[in-house]
Structure formats: structure tokens, C-alpha cells
């Protein structure tokens, strides 16, 4: 018996002060989402598939040097630049705040990749291949994308849908932070993250750990007046991402030469 659908709006918060760059999220994503194996050739061609990736930045020179880690995934923008350019409506924004890619509509124009400022979309230049035995691992809940198709982070929509069906429609409960964490209905990267740098939840659920950050970092509050460390990537582009970052705390900032800027 179908019940009224809960009106979720998903969002992610990434605490850069917790992230250690360990790659657990990256491999967890590969395992969950049938991401093709990144062979050495893919890296040499700069065509590795990483729906979530860890970017590493250098700052300074020896011995006053730091490395910074930044996990980047599809930002699920409210004003997504990738959406209006798709001629076949293969990518659209759903009512839960997700930027969705419909694989069987995609005709591979790659306009969306071109328009995405975050470079989080990946085009299948080849038919994905796995050795026969490794195919046993493929997740039956996730489509294997064929050649000529665009793919990207889905916020693990298959897990969210399974959670909605199980928890909300069958059990009459609510898919909240706790059920997602305990029963593996949240995105795979969030489940894996050893330092809890990644948080995921419903922006409309006031009890969710992420909602205060979305309340704080909104368009009505000037960036400098925010109470938390929240910011968004490339905020000036007004893409309104549903992913919020919390700034890294720098206890011993590098003494930079004149003309250089921190950050």
C-alpha cells in the first residue's frame, strides 16, 4: 500500500577539517556504482572515472609547505549549468534536489560535461569491460553504462530509493540520518568515510546534522556573516550546489610572500 511520499531534499556537507585524503570514499563509490576499472591508460589519458575524487593542492615551498585535500563530487546544483544544455533532457533536476542522469536518453553530445564547472561528469569513450569473474561483483541495482553515455555521481539514488521503499512505504517510518547510517541507505562514500568528514541528510529534516549548515549558508545571508565554516565551491557562479563544504581550520597559516593569497 503506497503512502504519501515524504518530500525530501537531499544534501551533503563535507568537513574539510576532518578529511584526511585517504581515498576510502573513492573506492567505496567504485564498488557501489559499477564504475569501470581505472586502468593505467585511463590515468595517462586523464580519463579516469572518479565520481568522487580527492583533489590535492600544494601550498608554499619546503619547509613551509602544506598539502590540502578536497573531495569533489557532483554538486547537484539547483541552478545546474549542465541541465539546460542537454538537447534530449537526459539530465534534469528532480524534486529531491538531485541532479539526475537518465542513461537511456543520453545520446552523448557531451554538452553537459562542457558546461559543468566542477568537472564531475564522465563520458564513456569505451564499452566498460570487466574480467568475467569480476562481473559477479557488479551491483544489480545500478545500470552498467555503455559506450557513448555520460555518467556521474547520483548521490547513490539506488540506495535512497531502496531506503524510501523499505523504510517509508513498507514500514511507515522516515528515512533520516539514523536509518540511513545504520541500514546502509545513505551514499556509499558517506558510509565509508573513516573520519566522518562526509555527512548526508535531508535539508528539510530539522533534526538532520546537515540542515543547520544549509540554513546558515543560504542566499539571504552574506558570506561573511555566516556563523559556521560553510561555503560552496565556486559560489560566485550561483549554481547553488546541494553540497556544502566546511572550511579547513589552519592553525599555523603559512607566511606567504607579498602578493600571494591564502586559500
Amino acid at each position, binding site marked *: 500500500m503506497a503512502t504519501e511520499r515524504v518530500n525530501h531534499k537531499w544534501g551533503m556537507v563535507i568537513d574539510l*577539517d576532518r578529511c584526511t585524503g585517504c581515498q576510502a570514499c573513492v573506492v567505496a563509490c567504485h564498488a557501489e556504482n559499477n564504475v569501470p576499472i581505472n586502468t593505467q591508460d585511463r590515468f595517462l589519458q586523464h580519463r579516469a572515472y572518479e565520481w568522487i575524487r580527492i583533489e590535492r593542492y600544494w601550498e608554499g615551498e619546503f619547509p*613551509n609547505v602544506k598539502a590540502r585535500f578536497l573531495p569533489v563530487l557532483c554538486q547537484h546544483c539547483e541552478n545546474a549549468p549542465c541541465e539546460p544544455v542537454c538537447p534530449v533532457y537526459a539530465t534534469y533536476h528532480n524534486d529531491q534536489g538531485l541532479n539526475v542522469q537518465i542513461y537511456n536518453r543520453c545520446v552523448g553530445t557531451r554538452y553537459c560535461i562542457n558546461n559543468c564547472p566542477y*568537472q564531475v561528469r564522465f563520458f564513456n569513450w569505451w564499452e566498460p569491460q570487466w574480467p568475467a569473474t569480476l562481473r559477479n561483483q557488479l551491483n544489480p541495482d545500478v545500470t552498467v553504462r555503455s559506450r557513448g553515455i555520460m555518467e556521474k555521481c547520483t548521490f547513490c539514488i539506488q540506495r535512497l530509493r531502496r531506503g524510501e521503499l523499505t523504510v517509508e512505504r513498507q514500514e511507515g517510518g522516515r528515512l533520516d540520518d539514523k536509518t540511513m547510517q545504520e541500514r546502509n541507505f545513505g551514499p556509499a562514500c558517506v558510509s565509508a568515510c573513516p573520519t566522518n568528514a562526509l555527512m548526508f541528510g535531508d535539508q528539510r529534516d530539522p533534526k538532520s546534522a546537515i540542515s543547520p549548515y544549509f540554513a546558515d549558508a543560504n542566499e539571504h545571508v552574506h558570506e561573511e556573516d555566516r556563523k559556521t565554516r560553510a561555503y560552496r565551491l565556486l559560489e560566485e557562479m550561483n549554481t547553488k550546489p546541494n553540497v556544502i563544504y566546511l572550511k579547513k581550520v589552519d592553525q599555523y597559516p603559512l607566511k606567504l610572500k607579498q602578493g600571494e593569497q591564502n586559500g
Partner: protein
Amino acid sequence: MNLTRRNFLTWAGISAAGAVSCNIPFPEAELKIQSPVRLPEDLVKGQDNWYATLCRQCPAAEGVLVRVMEGRAKKVQGNPKYPVNLGKQSARCDAGLQALYHPDRLAGPMSRTGAKGSGQYKAVSWDEALNILNSQLSERGQGLALITEPLRAHLSVIAGRFATAFGGRQLGFQTLDDTSYRGAVKTVFGQDVLPGFDLAHADYLLSFGADFLSTWGSPTQFSQAYGEFRQGAGRVRRGTHVQVEPRFSMTAANADRWLPITPGWEGHLAMSLAYVIIDEKLQAPGVDVGNLTGGRGIAALEAFRPETVAPRIGLPQGLLDGHSAADFIRELARDFASHRPSLAIGGDSAGAHSNGQFNLEAIYALNYLVGSVGAPGGVVFNAASPLPDLPAAAKVGSLADWAGVAEDIRSGKTKLLLVHQADPVHGLPKSMGFRDALAGDNLFTVSFSSFMDETTALADLILPDRVYLEDWGSDIPEPGPGYPVLGFQQPVVNPLSDYNPRSFADILLASAQGKAGNLPWPKLRDFLRESSDALFALKRGSIQAADSGEFWTKLLQQGGWWDDKATNPRPGAAPRDLLTGIAARAVPPAYSGLADGEFHLLPFAHNTLLDGGNAHLPWLQGAPDPVTTITWQTWVEVNDRKVKELKWREGDVIKVESAAGFILAPVYPNPALPPNVVAIPLGQGRRSGGEYAAGRAAPESANVMDLLEDRRVAVSGALAWAGARVRLTPTGESIRISKFEGSSPAREIGLTPSEDIFKTVESNGAAGAAH
């Protein structure tokens, strides 16, 4: 009814109207835009089951849940209840699935037909193979050597007693063995089991060399605490992390402050900090300095005055802010002592010099001065074991032990070698001659590996073990969480019909039947069940059950048993004269290698491949190294200005030469490496194995162990793998580095300035809660 165009449209219209009016719980927006097919994501196929078991991709043996559908394992996730990792996992855990379904898994027992190392084998039946094993055991089993991964709990009992029954020995193999660390823990804390650290409640962490966020100890356990250390709810102040390490490891990259010093001087720096703490009376209240120094007070540490130590340890001028190096040490000591609870830990390269055990003893002794031993935010001791007879500490072989094994093989004392989950031929320095010892005609080698590796390639008989997701097992985590834990591993799937493995433990038990080995259990599962009943009889801990059958079921459902109410041994007083004793053992590091070598070599365990045991797993090969972002290759990290000065470029193939030999590998200019240090990861350079592990030859792939000599850490006899002097010469060749760096343009990274440090610790979910 004929399907005409008109009919089709009519029915399509009726269906669509029906769908909309039936209150299907899909949002209107989706219906408007989507085609009349349902989205694949809206279809849920099949039921999944999640089984609790243990991960064996690294020695930490984290508790995991495995998602199984239709008899196939689909996903590995951290077990939220398991005390070590509390639902989290490392990148290595996920790749267990690739080991399970690997195309290069050995398909069944094999017996050697060609010369040793020729790779010529014929398939034999299990009956035949076990007959060969048993006849070899009765013929030449006396004095056998059983080399395994570091073992704890049940398998440790079985392997240990099996070896004893044949008058032989069982040893755990670790490429970068931790025997010096174990020695230091014994001297300083009097403990046989490795301690844990209450990082979550520490205020100040001083880490010497330990890459604890990546590979050292129990990285997921430490990482989880590290997240709390940074931004935990209810903290007053964000924790400060200072990393003293000559290499810019992933852990150093996360530190607030990175202090690169000359390799091998970590212990002198620690002693100098102790000097300042005692000199300025900064020790925690109640600390008996007289006891630590044999009543001599500061005089006992006179040799470690900052003014004496500072010129020797090579702190870079650029870090000192115009202060003298001695003042810098004093300031560091004051910081460390005043931000209690403060914690000092050490490991990896700090303990891998000729004076490594002294270094580690000096580092860990600092915890007594700041009152952090057994206190919240400090060093946490772990109990021996919840059940008697189950070892909680792994028995790990030092280099001295391996030299002994090699000698026994050469002398003919050991005529039978059994190897399980260990690749000593790959992981021991080439100069030790372990490969030649195994290639000798007097030795019969049996490998229980599921994959071809360098040791297995020299075996006479191969009996492929089950992969851990198909097998029973258990573990007592080391380091544990501070209370007794016994983790249980159960088979979550059956092996594919392509593979024909048998459990290593069960083979040992069957072969030992009737021998005086005190191994009464027919199978490992029987032994586990016996322990389950013993735990049930304790009537405490995480499982409430009416009878032992229910207890066993719940035990497997939870993935183990633990008792967070039980208290572990409280630490006693600090050993008398601890600091005086350590001071007396202080010696400068003696570097091996070439006398004219310009660079110190620092090998390190790869973030995902570790020492090479995971090199066959493509997800882990393709996971970028956190600092360099390099994949699928060996690389040589050299300071970027040094590279420029030498007129080299990224990817230039460099010959790295030590007294033991040379390797070829491409150079990666690293802006965060001291100019006199080169860092090279372990993990690649496998000479045997499938396409993923061994498919790339030099200079893409090289084994850094080939550069190491048989040099040992004083007292412990461990391999002194850090600091050897090497020479670098360009070969004129150049290759492309397969790295992730540069795949996408740079983005802004938000940094908050330091003055905001207090208010940036946010209580969980309460935005703007300033402290």
C-alpha cells in the same frame, strides 16, 4: 482486438491518465518530464542480505558487513557495531570483493613439474595433494617452518600448536615489521599487547614518523578518533597535531605543523623535550620525576639539552621564525606539556633506524611526563584476551628471526616450509638470499596462497586457501579499543565453481590429527563454536542469549563479542629509572648504504597496496596515492627544487643505487620533501602474479626492498629499513607518470584563519555554536 495505430494511442492515453489518477507515489515533476518507462532507479530488484564478518585486506582486521544477493557478494561496508571501526572502512576493505572474484585466483591444488621457479605446475586432485602434504610432513616435517601473516586468536593457536607438534616454529611475516615498536611498548609500558590511543579526547598530538592515518597500526580506528580530535561534538578546543617526520606522509599532510628532521634523530628530540619539561617543571601534577630519573632529576638528561641536540637534528631554518633551533625545541616542549591531555606516539621510520628502539622508547616515555598513560586522551592499554589460550598479540618475526629461518633451510635443519598469506621472497631484502634458500633442492615448500606471488612461484605444492569472505576465522584486534573484543569471521558466500579452494586451518587440523599437538577440533568452525560457548558461560558482554545456540547465532549476526564495561589492566607506576635507562641507550643513527650517497632513502607502505600484498587488486592499484596522486607505478619522490637544480623532469627514469643493488623508477618532484631525502613506496615490483600485480616491468614497477641491506635495529633485531644512503643518477630515459593530478582544474579551498580556532569547533549540528 487488432493493434492499430488508433487503438494503440487510445490505450496509451487511458493508461497514462490512469497512472496519474491512481496516486502513484511519484512526484508530479518526474511524471511530466520522464518518458512512460519507469526509471531504472525506481525498480528494486531482489532482496539483499547483509552478513557480518571480518576484513583481511590489512592486519587491522576491521569488522565488516557484506551485502549478498543471489549468492554473490556485492559490497563491503564497515560493521557499525564492531568496536574497532564502528561502521567505517578503509579503501582496502572494499577491494576484498575483487580478491573474491579475481580472474587470477588459483583454480585448485597444483604440484610442481618443472624446475623450481619455472612456473610449471600440473593440476592435481585434493586427495592427491593432501597425500603429498601428509607424506612430506611425516618424511621431513621435523623442524618445519610455518610462515603466516601476523596471527591472533584461533588461527594463531592452530598454527602455533601445529608447528610445535612437528618440532618447528611458526612466525608472522611483516615486511616493515613492528618488533621494535613491540619492544618499546614492553620496556616503557610493560605491556605485551599493543596499546590504543584515546585520540578523540586528546588536545595535543605529537607524532613521530607514524603514518597512522594511512597504514600504521589500525588506520580506520585512528582516523575515526582523528575526526573527533579535529571537530568532535562537545570539544572545547580543536586538537593540535604536530608531525615530526623526515618524509611528507599523508599523516604529515594532515598535521597542523610538519617538522622534517634528519632521519633517525627522533629519539634525541623526544629526550630533549623531556629535558625541557623537567627543567621548567612542566610535568603533569603528580608525576614523580625522581622515579623516572633515578633520583638524579635533570642531571640524568644533561646530554639532551636543547642547545646540544638542536644542531644535530637538522630542523630546517625556514621553520624557526628567526628563533634559534634550541628555543624552538623549548617552545615545542611547552606547547606539548601545556595542552593536556597531550599524547606522544611514534612508529614507522622513527623505529626503523639502527637506533630505532631507543627512538620509540624515548617518544613513548614522554607520555609519563604529561600524565597521559592510562588517562583519558592518552595511551589506552588492552587486555590480554577475553578467553585464556587465545593470543591477543601477534607473534611477528624480526629480521633476525628470518635470517635464522634462512640459515635453518641452508643447513638442512628445516626441510619443509609452509607459507600462508605471506610473501617473504618479495618482502625481505634481496641481499638476505631468501630466494636462493627457497630455490635449494633440500627444501620442500608448500604454499597456501590463493594467488601466485613470489614465494608461491618457488613452491613445490600449492594448496589454494579460501578467500576470507568464504572462510571461518576470528580476531582479537590489536590495538584494541581499550576493552576485550573477540571478532568472528564467517563465510558469506560459497566459492565460485571456477575455484576449488580449501580452508588452510582445516587442512592443518586434519594433518595434525593423531599427532601430539593438542588440536582436537576437526574443523576451525568447531573451535570457534567451542569459544562461543565459553563466551556464553562468561555471562557478560554485548550478547544476551537464553542458550548457547542462540548465543552463537547472535555472535555471528553481530560479527563478534565485546564487553565495553570490562576494564582493562590499569597501568602501574612508570618503571623506575625509565628515562635514565633510555638515556643510557641513546646513540646516533648509523646509516647503511653508500658512504657517498647524497640522499637518505625512506621506503614507505603504500596507502592501498601496503607492502605489495594487495597489488593484484585493480581498485587499489587505481586508487591515487594521497600525496602524489600516482597510480599503477613505483615512483621516486625528490624535492622539487632539487629536481630543478639537477635539471631533471617529472618522469625521468632514475637509477637509485645503494650498497645492496639498484632499482629504476621515474622521479616525482615533491615540493614537500627535504632536499636530502628520497621516498619510494613499497607495493609494486612483484615478479610473479597476474596481469594486475606483475604486468608492468621496470621502470614502471620496482621493488624498493631490493635496495636494502641486512641491517638491524639494535636490541629488537628488526630490519632497519629507513635512512640508508643512496645515490641517484639519471638514465636519460623518461616515461609518463600515471597520476590523477592535473585531471581537472583547480578550485577554491576554504581556509579559516587561526584566530577563529576556538569558535570553529562546532557542536554536532548546532550551527554557529561558538565556544
